[in-house]
């Protein structure tokens, strides 16, 4: 039943795409499209929940589509249902947001037809149960999102973003294709059941892991395959950015989990090392990149890279534990990873919505030209703040819960046998800790520079609060952040079947522990109670406030800022996004980005201004992508001479080919 409902969503969404083609230019057309998308997403959400909460058996169906002799295999199990939940939750939120935000879209005809198709693609990836359907919907998802990235195609950067994006997506698809080729074997057993029944030989399985890491990792944004992500995500309209960051990366993670945990058979001990190493680098690099950005949406995109790293860290740990036969520990790590997937979906959507609202209100994404928006858009500011707290992994919100679980999983790693892992896992743990702290710094900066202080440009001064649909979407996300943060046990239990399916064990039942405490292993070892922490903090804060206001003083006087006695009226004297990041840039950036500061001080007496210029290098781009691009360019240039030969030379080519083949014949045994 849930499968049928979920499957119905797909044609419904595709139908909406067609509808969008019809209404694309009518002024209210967007409401119809996003309204239907919202309804369908809610339906999909219902399907996912009913599968998860009922703990239903996996159901399976075959449609006469796709590869002809195979058909389109579709299946919903607990894992699929969990990601279906994420996809449709994100989809519903984005649709709700777009009900308001869509009105500001300058080129609706370039957004509306692709938006439902994008949702449909993501839904279908999760449901696919054979390699062809999987890759088909995977690539449709990329394609639809590419079209959305190209919505504002007149800007050169967006076109570049779209290009890099689609090439990387294609790279990912091709590597996944290779992986499936190995899994399916020469006979072409592309159905997942067939693959499950006959897992590949260990060597092939290892190759599959590497390919899956490349393929799904490039979609998810693992460093160094992430380069497209910070270009493409910000280029799309904000609700689409939210979907891309919040949902599509999760769908990519789903692909990785499905292939590596479900299809590739028993993991080898060293697989996790690869995953953990990449994940550790990704978390820290992602957040450091984010700290260096002054474009709000790009900052959010880089922070997505970081969070994907955190999820992969959990997955890597799960892989390590699974390989060592410690299913109970693997269950903890897997739960952490999957829960973080949901959490990131929610708060990143929220943050992108906020960024969209800001972009619309102030017409500006550059934080250096924003500021003081908390006065003009208080509700957006509040919701955005909730998102910032959540993503910074601070209690009592949801981000903390999943990171806490990940830490707990890291703490189980001394039980691992392998020496390599013994050394690697603490390092990964340290990187995770570092990234958590840096993320907090990053979002203090994001919120502080954008919403606090004084407006840095006239546009920011004229900003206004956003519409009610947008606010509703943001507050809904914020509410979910809080709910998951204070009642994580419910979600961990809902996840349990998916985890059990993947690693063969589940975390202890959480809801039996009193007061909604979550207990990863046993109570004496570690526990956390978001509800109590939340209640304590709220009670303490409000009681204190009440007491002080009643007993001591509640008088307030407004006056000019003190600022050590030297307040400067110009908003330019505030700390900017760049200056805020300066200490961290000095500490980390000199190594990671080759950050250099150059000061040009005019000689005494000269009226010329002093200048400070900062240069950053993207070592991943410069070291990996630029050489590849240059190499392709050089090869193309070299080969291009072949377009300008004389007929005689072309004949010589034919001649040489002939002689070569004859030589082959001559020496053929």
């Amino acid at each position, binding site marked *: 039943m849930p499968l049928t409902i979920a499957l119905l969503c797909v044609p419904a969404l595709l139908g909406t795409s067609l509808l969008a083609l019809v209404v694309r230019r009518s002024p209210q057309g967007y409401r119809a499209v996003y309204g239907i998308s919202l309804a369908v997403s809610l339906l999909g959400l219902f399907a996912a929940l009913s599968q998860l909460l009922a703990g239903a058996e996996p159901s399976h169906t075959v449609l006469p589509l796709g590869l002809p002799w195979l058909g389109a295999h579709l299946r919903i199990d607990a894992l699929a249902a969990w990601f279906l939940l994420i996809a449709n939750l994100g989809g519903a939120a984005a649709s709700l947001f777009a009900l308001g935000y869509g009105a500001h879209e300058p080129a609706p005809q370039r957004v509306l037809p692709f938006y439902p198709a994008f949702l449909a693609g993501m839904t279908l990836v999760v449901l696919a149960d054979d390699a062809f359907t999987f890759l088909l919907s995977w690539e449709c998802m990329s394609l639809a999102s590419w079209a959305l990235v190209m919505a504002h195609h007149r800007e050169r950067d967006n076109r570049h973003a779209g290009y890099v994006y689609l090439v990387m997506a294609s790279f990912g698809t091709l590597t996944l294709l290779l992986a499936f080729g190995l899994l399916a074997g020469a006979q072409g057993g592309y159905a997942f059941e067939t693959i499950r029944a006959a897992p590949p030989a260990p060597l092939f399985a290892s190759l599959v892991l590497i390919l899956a890491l490349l393929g799904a990792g490039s979609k998810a944004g693992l460093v160094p395959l992430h380069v497209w992500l910070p270009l493409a995500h910000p280029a799309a309209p904000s609700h689409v950015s939210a979907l891309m960051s919040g949902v599509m990366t999760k769908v990519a993670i789903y692909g990785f989990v499905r292939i590596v945990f479900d299809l590739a058979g028993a993991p080898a001990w060293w697989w996790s090392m690869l995953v953990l190493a990449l994940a550790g680098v990704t978390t820290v690099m992602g957040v450091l990149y984010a700290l260096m950005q002054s474009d709000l949406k790009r900052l959010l995109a880089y922070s997505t890279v970081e969070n994907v790293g955190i999820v992969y860290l959990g997955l890597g740990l799960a892989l390590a534990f699974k390989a060592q036969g410690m299913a109970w520990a693997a269950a903890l790590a897997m739960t952490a990873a999957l829960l973080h997937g949901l959490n990131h979906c929610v708060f990143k959507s929220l943050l992108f919505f906020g960024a969209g609202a800001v972009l619309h209100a102030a017409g500006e994404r550059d934080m250096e030209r924003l500021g003081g928006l908390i006065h003009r858009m208080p509700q957006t500011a509040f919701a955005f703040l909730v998102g910032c707290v959540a993503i910074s992994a601070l209690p009592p919100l949801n981000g*903390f819960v999943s990171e806490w679980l990940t830490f707990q999983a890291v703490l189980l790693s001394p039980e691992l046998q392998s020496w390599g892992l*013994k050394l690697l896992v603490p390092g990964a743990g340290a990187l995770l800790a570092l990234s958590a702290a840096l993320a907090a710094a990053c979002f203090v900066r994001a919120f502080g520079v954008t919403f606090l202080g004084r407006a840095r440009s006239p546009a920011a001064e004229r900003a206004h609060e956003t519409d009610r649909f947008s606010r509703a979407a943001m507050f809904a996300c914020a509410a979910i952040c809080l709910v998951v943060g204070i009642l994580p046990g419910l979600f961990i239990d809902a996840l349990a079947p998916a985890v059990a399916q993947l690693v063969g064990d589940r975390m202890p039942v959480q809801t039996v522990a009193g007061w909604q405490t979550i207990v990863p292993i046993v109570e004496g070892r570690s526990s956390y109670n978001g509800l109590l922490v939340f209640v304590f903090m709220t009670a*303490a804060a409000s009681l204190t406030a009440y007491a002080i206001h009643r007993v001591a003083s509640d008088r307030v006087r407004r006056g000019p800022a003190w600022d050590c006695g030297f307040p400067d009226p110009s908003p330019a004297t505030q700390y900017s996004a760049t200056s805020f990041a300066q200490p961290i840039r000095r500490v980390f950036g000199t190594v990671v980005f080759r950050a250099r500061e150059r000061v040009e001080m005019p000689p005494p007496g000269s009226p010329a201004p002093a200048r400070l210029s900062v240069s950053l290098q993207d070592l991943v781009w410069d070291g990996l992508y630029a050489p590849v691009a240059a190499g392709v360019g050089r090869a193309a240039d070299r080969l291009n001479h072949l377009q300008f030969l004389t007929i005689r030379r072309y004949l010589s080519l034919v001649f040489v080919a002939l002689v070569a083949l004859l030589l082959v014949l001559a020496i053929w045994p």
Partner: protein
Amino acid sequence: MALIFDLAVQGVQMLLVLALAPLLTGFVRKVKARLTRRRGPSLIQPYRDLVRLLRKEVVLAENASWLFRVVPYVVFAATWVAAALVPTFAAGLIFSWSADLIAIIALLGSARFALALAGLDVGTSFGGIGSSREVMIASLAEPAMLMIVFTLALIAGSTQLSTIATFMATGDVGLRVSLGLALIALIMVAIAENARIPVDNPATHLELTMVHEAMVLEYSGRHLALIELSASLKLLLYLSLIGCVFAPFALAGPEAGLSAYALGAALYVLKLAAGGFLLAVFETSIAKMRVFRVPEFLGAALMLGLLGTLLLFVSRGL
């Protein structure tokens, strides 16, 4: 009945930390003054300051938003809750399982997050300096602290502070290199977190060196009082933490009687006094370092923590 008793003990703990925190701050100041041959303010001067501040009106910058007014309460609440969860005189309090050591660190992180935002709210350059330096310091101090937590958790098999303290009190631990490293790292982190010399100077308004004070420059009245109190609480928290982990003497157990509690409380005060004294001695004997040497200082702490963890990972396998 037992529940009520447990709740009462928990309540006592909460009030105790609140009551002792300014005293500890006053004590440290007093000792420092004495060490520099001044008489210094009286021990209860911090209480007086707090009361005076609470009674005064708040002068808000024209540009301050609602966030600016909420932050002091949030900071105070987070710090207070965190401090209440650290075993002071007794382990295994009724709510101790609601947050483990990682959560306590994260609670302090929440407080700092809020404070850093407040520093940016008015839009002054000093606030920005403070916030930006504060998050830089935190970005190293927090992972270092987590590494210390890892070390402790691996030794005790738990991240639950009560469990750790109980375990440490049993004496099964013996002498461990990791623990030593963790202790040194913890002290370094504590110094940084509490804005003490050599990382920061809580008593200066000299622009080039300010970190914490720059952030709270715009606060006045009751808001400032709360922030000062939170700072004191935080100092107390760290000393309690060091005390309960590395000197878990006479910590009352979960089902202990009143006498055990009393003994625990008495020893707790002694531990605090000793800690405060050592801090004061340390602070007077060392010079403030440049802001951009702080990362090296904290990086060292991080490395020590990581080293401790690694040693444990490796020795487990032997």
